[in-house]
């Protein structure tokens, strides 16, 4: 699947396109098919997102998992500071990245 990501213009947070807006949680992302750049242009113009781009991902039993490790780390947070990640209560969250 193709999902659309970028950073929130004001906060810099990693965000994912949900079909209606943006979420900080990759599991809220939707498959944008081949409409990614079209959506990105509209959202960039509206200043909802900064530096938006499309990435490959897969739907797994654990949710949506970006194909490349860099995007998985973006989705989770730094693997060396899981307390700052989106899964601070899960000590095994880093395994999801690797």
């Amino acid at each position, binding site marked *: 699947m193709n999902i659309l990501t970028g950073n929130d*213009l004001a906060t*810099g947070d990693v965000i994912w396109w949900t079909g209606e807006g943006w979420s900080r949680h990759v599991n809220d992302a939707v498959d944008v098919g081949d409409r990614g750049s079209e959506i990105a242009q509209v959202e960039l113009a509206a200043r909802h997102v900064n530096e938006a781009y499309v990435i490959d991902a897969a739907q797994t039993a654990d949710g949506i998992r970006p194909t490349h490790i860099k995007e998985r780390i973006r989705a989770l947070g*730094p693997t060396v500071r899981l307390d*700052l990640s989106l899964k601070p209560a899960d000590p095994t969250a880093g395994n999801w990245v690797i």
Partner: protein
Amino acid sequence: MYRYDQYDQAMVDARVAEFRDQTERRLSGQLSEAQFRPLRLMNGLYLQLHAYMLRVAVPYGTLSGRQMHMLAHIARKYDRDYGHFTTRQNIQYNWIKLADAPDILADLASVEMHAIQTSGNCIRNISSDQYAGVAADEVADPRPLSELLRQWSSFHPEFTYLPRKFKIAVISSKTDRAAMRLHDIGIELVKKDDEIGAKVFVGGGMGRTPMIAPEIRDFVPFNEVVSYLEACLRVYNRYGRRDNKYKARIKILVHEMGADEYRRQVEEEFAHMKTLGLDPPVAELERIAAHFAPPPYETGLSDEIDLSDRDFAAWVGSQVAPHKVPGYAIVNISLKPIGGIPGDASSAQIDLIADLAEKYSFDELRVTHAQNIVLAHVKKSDLYAVWKALEEADLGTANLDLISDIIACPGLDYCSLANARSIPVAQKIAKRFSDLDRQKELGELKLKISGCINACGHHHAGNIGILGVDRKGVENYQLLLGGSGAEDVSLGQITGPGFDEDGIVDAVEKATNVYLANRTEGERFVETFRRIGMAPFKEALYG
């Protein structure tokens, strides 16, 4: 230490106001990201993997307690309660909000700090020796020249858009604690016929094409250094490869042109520059130098240290260096606790170090390129109190220059340029060698890790270097041996095929075993490698 005059403060304050306006225009849509990006980068604000990252300049690594407290305040108020000290003697914050950035810059300006020229193709923060002014073997204090170059290079209109970024280091001892010859320009202050001047090396660097800077001039009189550097930069600005980002650093120009021809052109330009009256008057040099006068040391102090506490004795043996004034010592504070993140410090730790600097070290401290902190003037009679305070704050690790004193870039955990993570590898290696006696048995062993070819973790200069690469979406780590960023500068050699994350930890251990089996009395790792060569290491690593 240097204090801003009205010109310094006015320039920094004006930049804060300018950036506040630019940020407001970006947030309101008057500026596109394409327009805004170069403006924010000129103020050290990057967009990294998880958020905006702000890189704050620490000129030649020197800070006052008040400035250090401000760094803690910024970590606490605007970030996630910590900062990361870098190999450029700067500090980075990883979780900055764009709307907060102008307020942060204003807070920095209130303590004579900024983030100007910490990005972009300009002259970056000048780096120097963390033992400046206190090393027994220095020919002169390198900080006055570093400060002069800071002023010369700040907002220099001709060098704001160089072909590529430009890094300068200044040292003044034969002992190189600043990786001087791995900079675009490295300066060693030397004495010739009782006159202080600069030996100038040009064209060093790490990155994808590591090079050791050749000597371009053996002596430039101190009061002509600005003209000489102006000439060096002018030749680079004229002929540097703007057509290819990967060939745009001055090291490529010097290499392709040849050091002799580069030197000839610089001399020609230098002769011209000297006619322009660019060099500062003696009074200005004296004004700057006066800021770096020695602090009011006490006299008649004892050099005795009570080492009856074994843990304290171990810390003194590792972290305390000789000071040129009797009764005083240099304290190295490790930011490398076993299993910790190299260079990271919490706001509480930053505050504590600032307190210690204020109380015990004439209100001054230094950031080292090895991502540690130095208190440069501690009375030996105060060492125990300093150590106790550091111990309580998890800052008392006794591992300076040992295998767990690892330089590591932020890597793929934070950096959008990285291909692999650096920090977890550093943590695993530190844990593997956590036994302090084992580390001491290995002796001086500088291990440096980069998460990509840009080499922010100085892997080329590691006695053991590790380079993280992306192999079809999987992290892989190349091993290098034999590098040094010190006065015996050399570039590490790649051993062969890379390893996975656990494999690289095993590989490091195997390399240390080869060293232990082959070293002669008193021989350091890098010396053994140079003597026996790569073959025994390859045999152990690959069979």
